[in-house]
Every structure is written in structure tokens, then in C-alpha cells.
């Protein structure tokens, strides 16, 4: 069985994570779109730390005698998923950023051309 203190600490940490994420959305520092994975992470970890019998059962399936290991494994898995998701988001942002810079350069060139139409002659 998971030590009670570990369950309490894990539950508290999950609640803290949920509260921080909600506050970040509320204060407009985080978009809902990117918060959903974090909320899911917090909810799953909270459920697993409170539902101690369930954690035991899952630990049994994997043949480990130490149920908190499942908690760590699940947390790690979610963090990996979040990181991977953010990598795709960053890639998309980088592409869009390049496109914006190119558009801006072309626009600037066009404006310069309008301001000094015969400068080259």
C-alpha cells in the first residue's frame, strides 16, 4: 500500500498544479488550448493519489510492489506528452514567425519603392 504521506503530498501537489494553471488562464497568461493537457495531467494525478486502492491494483498489473512508482511513471508520461506537444507548437510558431518576417521585408521594400520611386535612375 502507498504510504499515506505520499498520497497526501501527491494530492496536494496535484491540487496546486490545477490551481496554478487555472489562475494562469484567468489572468490571461495561458490560453485554454494549451492548458487542457496540464489540467488533464493534474486531474489524473489527483485521481491516482486519492484512489489508493486503484493505484495498488495498477501497481499489481506491472508487478511492482511499490505503488508510488506508478504515480511517478504516470507523471513522467504526461510530462513527456506535454513536452512533445509544445515541441510541435514551437515548430509551428517558428514557421509562422519566418513567414511574418518575410512578408514584412517584402512590404517594407514595397513601401520604400513608393517613397523613392526614381531613386535608382
Amino acid at each position, binding site marked *: 500500500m502507498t504510504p499515506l504521506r505520499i498520497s497526501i503530498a501527491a494530492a496536494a501537489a496535484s491540487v496546486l498544479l490545477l490551481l496554478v494553471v487555472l489562475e494562469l*488562464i*484567468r489572468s*490571461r497568461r495561458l490560453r*485554454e*488550448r494549451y492548458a*487542457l493537457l496540464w489540467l488533464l495531467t493534474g486531474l489524473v494525478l489527483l485521481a491516482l493519489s486519492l484512489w489508493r486502492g486503484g493505484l495498488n491494483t495498477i501497481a499489481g498489473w506491472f508487478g511492482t510492489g511499490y505503488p508510488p512508482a506508478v504515480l511517478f511513471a504516470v507523471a513522467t508520461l504526461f510530462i513527456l506528452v506535454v513536452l512533445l506537444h509544445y515541441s510541435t507548437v514551437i515548430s509551428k510558431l517558428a514557421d*509562422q514567425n519566418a513567414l*511574418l518576417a518575410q*512578408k514584412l521585408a517584402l512590404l517594407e521594400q514595397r513601401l520604400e519603392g513608393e517613397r523613392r520611386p526614381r531613386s535608382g535612375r
Partner: protein
Amino acid sequence: MSELAAPARPRAEAAPAALRRVAIVPARDEEACIARVIREIALVDPDLQVVVVDDGSSDRTAEVAAEAGAIVLRLPFNLGIGGAVQTGFRYALEGDFDLAVRLDGDGQHDPGELAALIAPVVAGEADIVVGSRFAGTTGYRVPLARRAGIRLFARVVSLLVRQRLTDTTSGFQAVNRRGIALFAADYPHDYPEVEATVMVFKHKLRLCEVPVRMRERTGGTSSITAFSSVYYMVKVLLAIFIALFRRNVVVR
């Protein structure tokens, strides 16, 4: 006077000539319908400036819209419906327009309903008017699953804003200067109308619904697929509740 001389559609006579008004038409890959939408708007109200926001289309939407006489704002990549619509409201704010209407580029919003839509704004009775498919007996049919979603959002939002609303997902809207300023400053993202309703309530703007007929889509595909609908449901519900507690934007 013969019946034949009458215009095919009722003109938006509710709008005084002095009101500067703009129609915001978000469009993505709508080359098949966009020209007809623009021409129909011009037929109903020739003084309505049509602005098409091309949300990263891969077809000839922008060219077709410009040929049909619209001003075209071309986004360099797809921003999603919320970002596209907000671009239109920013244009309306910078252009100092008194009134903005929003119609979708796929032709499902009938410009013939514009007069009814803008009437409460012109009369000064509302800051934002939403054309509802379900407020009257308009006989609009939507698939059962989507209808359930629309109903759920309408119920939840009605409770939160303490006003009975029937269609919180309708993009057929008219707003006055206050509405333009608010939406230019802040507009929700992926499925924006539901959250915008809560935002309007929080900023103490007056919202009302008028019953409108809507048409079935004439081309293109809906942005909402079955696969993503559950994701949107969760996201929008979350957004609604957060919107209630969110800090207000400063509207100049």
C-alpha cells in the same frame, strides 16, 4: 407601381445613411460562395462596406472577393475563426465605423435578414445583436448531435448571464461602436461566439437575439468535425467558466 419594379430583396432601410457601417466576412477556402455573398450584401445595402478576412485560404478566395468588390484582408497564415473575425473588428475600429455586422463567407447567413439584425443596434436598444436560428419558428434543421451541443451551450450561458438565449453559437451578429471596441481589444479563439457572449455580459454590454432564417451551406465544409467536437465542447465549457472570473480588458 408594378410589382416587378420592387427590388428582389428588402433593403436595409433601418440604417440611416449617416451611420458608417461595415460587414465583416471571415472566409477560408470559400472561392465557390464568396462572390455571391458579397454581391448579395451589396444588393441589400450598397453603403455597407464589405471586408473579407481571408484566413489563410489555399484557393482563390482573396482574388475572387477582391474582384467582387470587397476589401480583402489577407492573413499570412490560418489564425482560426476567432483571430480572423477580430482582424475585421480591428479594421472597423481603425476605420471609425459606427456599426459592424458579421456574416460567414459560406453563404449560410442570408443578407436579406440584415435589416432585422441591425434594427436594435440602430434604435440604440442593444450593443450587440445575435441572429438566432432557434429564437422563432424559422425551421432551421441541424444534425442532432450538433443541436445538442448548441442547446447545451445556450443553457449554460443563459444561466451564467441571467438572460434567456437560444443560440450562442451563431456568428450572424451586429454590433455598435462599444461592441467593435470590445471585440477589437479582445476576442476569443477557436469557437468564439459562446465565450464572446459571456464576455459581452461581463463588460455590461446589452445583448439581444433576433430570429433569423439561415440557409444550408452552399459549398465548402464546416469547420467542426465529429472528431474535434468533444475537444471543443470541453474547451469551450472551460473557457466559459474562466471567462466569468477573468479580468476585464481595458477598452479605449
